[in-house]
């Protein structure tokens, strides 16, 4: 399992587009990111559209205006996770820039300059890779710019470069000569790009690791001017609302749009294979028009299953042998001879991402190709798939990437689903005008691409002394990549994301994991903040807790020897326990639970404290987080991501589920798919372990330990286990 997780961040690679049929060869190659030297494109490649006089573009990531503004071109999109701030910190650090002169913008789509080195050669954001794959590259870019600025000052002033110092964006020499970056920009543009650069030592850092940096994206987000897709307004733009098929797998049989066409503001109605779109001059007219459509659906191929039946089928599957994904020793035999065995099964519903900004995309078809405005997350995949739909070269798909109002995985869709829908609407529209496709909350909730539903059954063996001897786990659930353009992420015939983290990292001599991957369910599924860990961590960490109690041991004490080969796990476990006051008495009705998970190369332990009230309801009062994510580049961002991860995970753990009845999604909006609200938010304390390891991600790793920590705390308070998520409001 370890090797799979190691390569988890090395995502996918676009291999070839053969004779019009697109295949995305996808691979995971652990060596890829290490081998590939950071590419820092040369001068004039920073993607600016107009080259102003006196401008300095040392490379693809930095542009300095004569007015002394440093534009940082971020290859990673900003969806709240703080990557614009993170990447800017790295560049500002090595340049010795003034934080106030930094302006950060999204890179255009061009994988040759802005590829994610953890993803092979595609441009995209996800898998908590932004910091890990940018740490050296952005610092090199900043350091190179600084060398060129210093070189320019040296030649202008006739002094050796070695005598020049730079501090907070001011270049100066002992003689009293001083200049800003902006003043040196024009001269610096003529400097040779250095072949190699020296990076700062950690003790020289002025920004990395400091917690007083303001987020670079913050101003527009407090005064309402930040531009999201929803806010794009273009001349003659029409808004498209879409009526989607009510079942997965259904299609349009016929449409009566006579009432729709009579609605003021409606311009046209276009029919796609499985949807009907209404284009109008504004949202409200489009919505009225959509509500007036009379559509007959062809449900002959529709999926009409229900969640209860699905789980019953999953449970049956779990009784049969599955595809072996891990085998160490002989778990089944060891179970036979164990002094004591423990059994449990867990079920997990489909989950919607429910980003605050529902999915949307603005499309303008042009003579040469197509221009898009949206919170692009997988630029290269989107370009290829859009190119295929339009029959054009992917390079002709121009992407204007905007702030995303949350994503949690959703906007990086392996099939570019909502983007293709917008493009197909624009293509079918009789008017060659910009089209803004807007999903309502209900569309967003019901249109799929959920965290897949899962079922886990587990058995463990303990010896006389209460030591764990065997672990046997069967996992049942749909694959995220099987049958998609990203099938190349499969390993040894299975989707590693279905089982990642299962049974880890405990040193148990006999371990086996088997997987069933149902392929007959057309409900669309996708990565959801922390992917497989969303369910494997719950099953693993709740079951370990159960084993500890079966062994008569404290859950922290029980884990420690099993983590003897995992020092980073152990360190966060111990830190969280210590900070939470593990082992100290709590009043009756209260309980503490712990969980520790490594995901995306970061290590997080969480201790949750709950209070169970007389009426059986409960609250989560406090969550203590200990995180080791390597060098802590932006402590504030790390704290925000851990706290937000706790809130997002608690939201799902308490009340989120997508269920199907006769194939139809039962939830529609925030009244029946109920996100966490401020009054349910626990006090979260984040402790960051000091580390010199390379930085790893923080967007996802705060999520997995939360639900098991809460469930274990409920057990501590009540003696009752929870085998099904969401927990609901009763302890």
């Amino acid at each position, binding site marked *: 399992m370890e090797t799979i997780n190691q390569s988890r961040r090395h995502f996918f690679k676009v291999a070839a587009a053969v004779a019009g049929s697109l295949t995305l060869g996808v691979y995971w190659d652990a060596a890829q990111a290490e081998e590939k030297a950071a590419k820092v494109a040369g001068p004039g490649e920073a993607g600016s559209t107009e080259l102003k006089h006196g401008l300095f573009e040392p490379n693809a990531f930095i542009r300095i205006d004569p007015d002394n503004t440093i534009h940082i071109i971020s290859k990673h999109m900003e969806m709240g996770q*703080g990557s614009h701030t993170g990447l800017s910190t790295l560049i500002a650090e090595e340049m010795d820039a003034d934080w106030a002169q930094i302006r950060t913008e999204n890179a255009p789509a061009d994988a040759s300059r802005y590829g994610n080195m953890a993803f092979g050669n595609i441009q995209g954001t996800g898998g908590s890779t932004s910091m890990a794959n940018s740490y050296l590259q952005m610092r090199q870019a900043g350091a190179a710019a600084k060398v060129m600025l210093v070189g320019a000052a040296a030649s202008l002033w006739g002094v050796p470069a070695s005598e020049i110092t730079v501090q907070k964006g001011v270049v100066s020499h002992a003689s009293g000569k001083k200049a800003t970056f902006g003043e040196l920009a024009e001269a610096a543009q003529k400097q040779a790009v250095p072949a190699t650069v020296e990076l700062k030592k950690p003790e020289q850092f002025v920004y990395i690791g400091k917690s007083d940096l303001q987020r670079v994206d*913050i101003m527009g987000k407090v005064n309402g001017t930040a531009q999201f897709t929803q806010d794009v*307004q273009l001349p003659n733009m029409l808004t498209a609302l879409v009526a989607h098929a009510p079942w997965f797998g259904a299609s349009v049989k016929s449409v009566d749009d006579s009432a729709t066409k009579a609605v003021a503001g409606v311009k046209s109605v276009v029919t796609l294979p499985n949807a009907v779109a209404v284009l109008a001059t504004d949202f409200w007219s489009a919505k009225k028009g959509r509500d007036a459509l009379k559509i007959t659906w062809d449900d002959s191929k529709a999926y009409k299953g229900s969640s209860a039946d699905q789980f019953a089928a999953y449970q049956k599957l779990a009784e049969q042998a599955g595809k072996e994904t891990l085998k160490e020793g002989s778990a089944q035999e060891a179970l036979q001879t164990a002094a004591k065995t423990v059994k449990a099964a867990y079920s997990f519903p489909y989950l919607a991402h429910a980003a605050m900004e529902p999915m949307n995309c603005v499309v303008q078809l042009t003579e040469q190709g197509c221009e898009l405005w949206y919170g692009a997350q997988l630029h290269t995949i989107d370009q290829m798939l859009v190119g295929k739909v339009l029959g054009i070269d992917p390079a002709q798909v121009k992407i204007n990437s905007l702030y995303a109002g949350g994503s949690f995985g959703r906007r990086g869709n392996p099939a570019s689903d909502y983007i293709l829908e917008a493009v197909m609407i624009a293509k079918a529209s009789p008017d060659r005008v910009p089209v803004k496709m807007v999903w309502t*909350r209900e569309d967003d909730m019901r249109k799929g691409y959920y965290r897949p539903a899962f079922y886990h059954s587990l058995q463990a063996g303990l010896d006389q002394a209460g030591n764990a001897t065997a672990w046997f786990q069967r996992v049942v659930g749909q694959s995220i990549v099987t049958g998609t353009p990203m099938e190349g992420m499969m390993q040894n015939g299975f989707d590693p994301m279905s089982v990642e983290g299962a049974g880890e990292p405990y040193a148990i001599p006999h371990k086996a994991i088997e997987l069933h991957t149902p392929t007959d369910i057309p409900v669309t599924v996708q990565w959801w903040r922390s992917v497989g860990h969303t369910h494997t961590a719950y099953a693993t960490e709740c079951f370990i807790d159960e084993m500890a109690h079966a062994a008569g041991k404290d859950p922290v004490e029980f884990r420690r020897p099993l983590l003897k080969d995992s020092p980073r796990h152990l360190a966060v476990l111990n830190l969280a326990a210590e900070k939470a006051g593990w082992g100290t008495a709590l009043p009756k009705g209260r309980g503490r639970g712990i969980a520790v998970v490594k995901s995306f190369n970061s290590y997080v332990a969480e201790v949750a404290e709950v209070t169970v009230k007389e009426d059986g309801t409960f609250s989560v009062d406090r969550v203590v987080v200990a995180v080791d994510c390597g060098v802590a580049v932006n402590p504030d961002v790390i704290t925000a991501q851990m706290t937000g991860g706790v*809130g997002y995970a608690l939201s799902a753990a308490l009340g989120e589920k997508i269920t199907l009845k006769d194939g139809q999604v039962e939830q529609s909006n925030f009244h029946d798919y109920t996100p966490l609200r401020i009054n349910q938010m626990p006090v979260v304390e984040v402790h960051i372990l000091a580390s010199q390891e390379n930085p790893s991600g923080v967007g996802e790793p705060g999520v997995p330990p939360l639900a098991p920590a809460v469930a274990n705390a409920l057990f501590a308070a009540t003696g009752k286990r929870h085998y099904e998520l969401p927990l609901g409001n009763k302890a």
Partner: protein
Amino acid sequence: MKLMINGQTQELDIAPDMPLLWALRDHAHLTGTKFGCGLAQCGACTVHVDGQPTRACVTPVSAVEGKQITTIEGASQSSKVTQALQAAWLANNVPQCGYCQSGQLMSATALLSQNPKPTDDEINSFMAGNICRCATYQSIKTAIKQAAASLA
């Protein structure tokens, strides 16, 4: 239809049943007010109507004719309370994706206007109508208390 938005009268060519949200966004081109649910469930569309926090997504324009409508754009300019909150939002790095934050700030402005020194429980109950999927709740609470202190 005549609407008084951020202190100015605007003549908009819209149907009376159009929710205020879409009049503001699509017709007055004030896009700071966000669409999150359309069902008075999330608070992203919160504006003030005669000073009262109002969910613009379910308020037809016919109901607000002749009333003072204030959006995040207007409050940023004219409200001392909003400005104090914005300063506290900046100091605490509150936003993540930012999409809910206009609504959070408009609700918080209404809270502090009615109750200059809210307790944690009062913040919880007043702000419970504003969802933040990024779960920035903890820093929202800190920032509201900081703003309250700075206004005192």
